[in-house]
């Protein structure tokens, strides 16, 4: 038989030019909501990276003459402020109770939110994926043990755990000797502006959902013939897990992590709100809301502006995650 005889009609050439990821990207761009979400996320990232160029003042610079200053336009929205507010247009959205520019604090605050989002996502993606893939691939007793550990961790209220941990480390700092572990961790925490324990807390609690998802995916994938085919080719277990199975679960995992990011951001905001988050004067939207909440009847904008920023950020990530879910859905591949 010659080659020309063996030629058979090709599979549709239409989608030939586009690979798997390009196809997903294309469909993501078709979705308006996710496009807006993605745009906002990009803006936010740019704002965080170039905070020191964009922000008109430093986040800790005080103007004692202008504490709680309110610009003219805010009094239009909140006329109740007028009788007692110091009206000054020096700060474009006003100053806080010690006279720091709120806009600058808001811009720098995006850094904290995004760093927490990225670190949380990275930790949960790495630990969760490796853990879940291993558990699902080996199955049997290994799987049983590993997943029961996840169940136990799940049963523990995560917020309580983070709060306990923070309280414990922060309080033991005063007593710990230089050179001891808790002293070391605390000095690292200080250097991070109080974010280390937020990372640790999110890291400890965030990977479990990802692990379960990855495990579930692998349970079905390892029964597929291509896993057997890879084994028959002489590939080792770790090679099969990371080269063959990982690319298959990456889509669902990315969606999950994107949708989980608002959770990390709100965790950080909540911790900062109750005073266990970043150290002053590092600005965080959560601590800004907390500062503003004290005077919410008098100066409602001080709490409302950072709260709006927070919710919009969370919306943006949710829209993006939603769009990703549709874009990466294999059943919709090749459609609009």
């Amino acid at each position: 038989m010659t080659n020309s005889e063996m030629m058979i009609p090709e599979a549709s050439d239409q989608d030939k030019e586009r690979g798997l990821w390009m196809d997903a990207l294309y469909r993501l761009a078709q979705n308006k909501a996710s496009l807006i979400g993605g745009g906002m996320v990009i803006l936010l990232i740019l704002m965080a990276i170039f905070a020191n160029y964009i922000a008109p003042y430093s986040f800790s610079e005080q103007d004692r003459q202008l504490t709680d200053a309110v610009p003219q336009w805010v009094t239009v929205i909140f006329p109740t402020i007028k009788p007692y507010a110091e009206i000054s247009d020096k700060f474009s959205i006003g100053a806080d109770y010690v006279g720091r520019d709120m806009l600058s604090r808001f811009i720098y605050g995006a850094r904290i939110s995004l760093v927490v989002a990225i670190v949380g996502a990275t930790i949960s993606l790495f630990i969760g994926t490796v853990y879940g893939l291993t558990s699902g691939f080996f199955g049997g007793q290994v799987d049983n043990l590993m997943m029961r550990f996840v169940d136990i961790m799940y049963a523990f209220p995560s917020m309580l755990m983070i709060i306990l941990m923070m309280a414990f480390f922060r309080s033991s700092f005063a007593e710990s000797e230089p050179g001891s572990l808790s002293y070391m961790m605390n000095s690292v925490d200080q250097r991070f502006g109080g974010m280390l324990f937020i990372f640790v807390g999110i890291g400890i609690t965030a990977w479990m959902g990802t692990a379960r998802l990855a495990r579930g995916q692998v349970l079905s994938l390892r029964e597929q013939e291509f896993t057997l085919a890879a084994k028959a080719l002489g590939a080792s277990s770790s090679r099969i897990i990371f080269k063959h199975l990982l690319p298959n679960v990456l889509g669902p995992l990315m969606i999950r992590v994107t949708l989980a990011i608002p959770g990390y951001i709100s965790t950080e905001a909540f911790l900062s709100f109750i005073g266990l988050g970043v150290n002053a004067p590092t600005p965080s939207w959560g601590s800004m809301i907390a500062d503003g909440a004290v005077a919410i009847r008098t100066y409602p904008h001080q709490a409302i502006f950072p709260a709006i920023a927070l919710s919009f950020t969370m919306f943006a990530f949710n829209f993006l995650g939603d769009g990703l879910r549709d874009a990466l859905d294999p059943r919709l591949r090749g459609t609009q």
Partner: protein
Amino acid sequence: MTNLLEVRGLKTQFFTQNGIVRAVNGISYTLKEGECLGIVGESGSGKSVNVLSLMRLIPTPPGKIVGGEVLFKGEDLMLLPMDEMRRIRGAEIAMIFQEPMTSLNPVLTIGFQVEEALKLHKGMDSKAARERTAELLTLVGIPNAIERLDDYPHQFSGGMRQRVMIAMGLSCDPALLIADEPTTALDVTIQAQIVDLVKELRKKLGMAVIWITHDLGVIAGLAERVIVMYGGYIMEEALVKELYARPRHPYTIGLLGSLPRLDAGEGAKLTSVRGQPPNLVNLPDGCPFAPRCDFVGERCTQKMPPLEEIGPGHRVACWEKEKTEGMKPHAR
């Protein structure tokens, strides 16, 4: 010619909640270098478990190879440590599977998947592996192979994917290619192309082939020797012409009788093998085929008959083999 593969008393069982599934019950056979052996049997006859056992790819648990030796080039594969077994898989013994639609990883390019074995076993760098992959794909009849290296499986048709699978199997010049029902999922014209391709490649590369199928028609034009399996036992083994001309086991006769023939006269009816395949959990003591057999005798339900030689290279496991002498499948 020397024996490439010698299987002695291979026994594989699955330990499930419902009991022990005795999938393969102590089978023995040999394969010479460059020979093509067909293994025929219906679903659940143990043909796939048999070859997966050779490769030690039985999922453990629940499966376990409970006994037997598999001598490949004189070395017992069952005793090898896993990392050495991995070195044999893909390099010395390659395997292709039934479902070309699912046996390629949907998110990896064709090029990556074919290159993998080359990188793993031959230590080739990316560039060399890529060149060799293009050669292989051309060899198995994929047009414009170089351009298609970066394509994904969903851009290939079923027959083309099976060609890619074959290219993966051939990549390291294996001494033995195991094909586990490679044409079952394809339509008939593509089946013929794949069979022709394997025939041609075998001639070119001189490798031995074990071809598993439930389609006696496919085997006829391809294999030199055929093993008929039923209920985890080898029922009959013969050279391909001998098997078609003088089948001796009642099951083989039944199978051949159920094939449509061009030369059967008008109005000739197809026969079927009555009854159901056995449940491998509670395999009866005697011959597993006894409940469906037209020639069943007293001994059949008590003891499994031994596989006895009745002619040159022709072995049958049947107590009542005298009764079937000279029978033609369609004469019943």
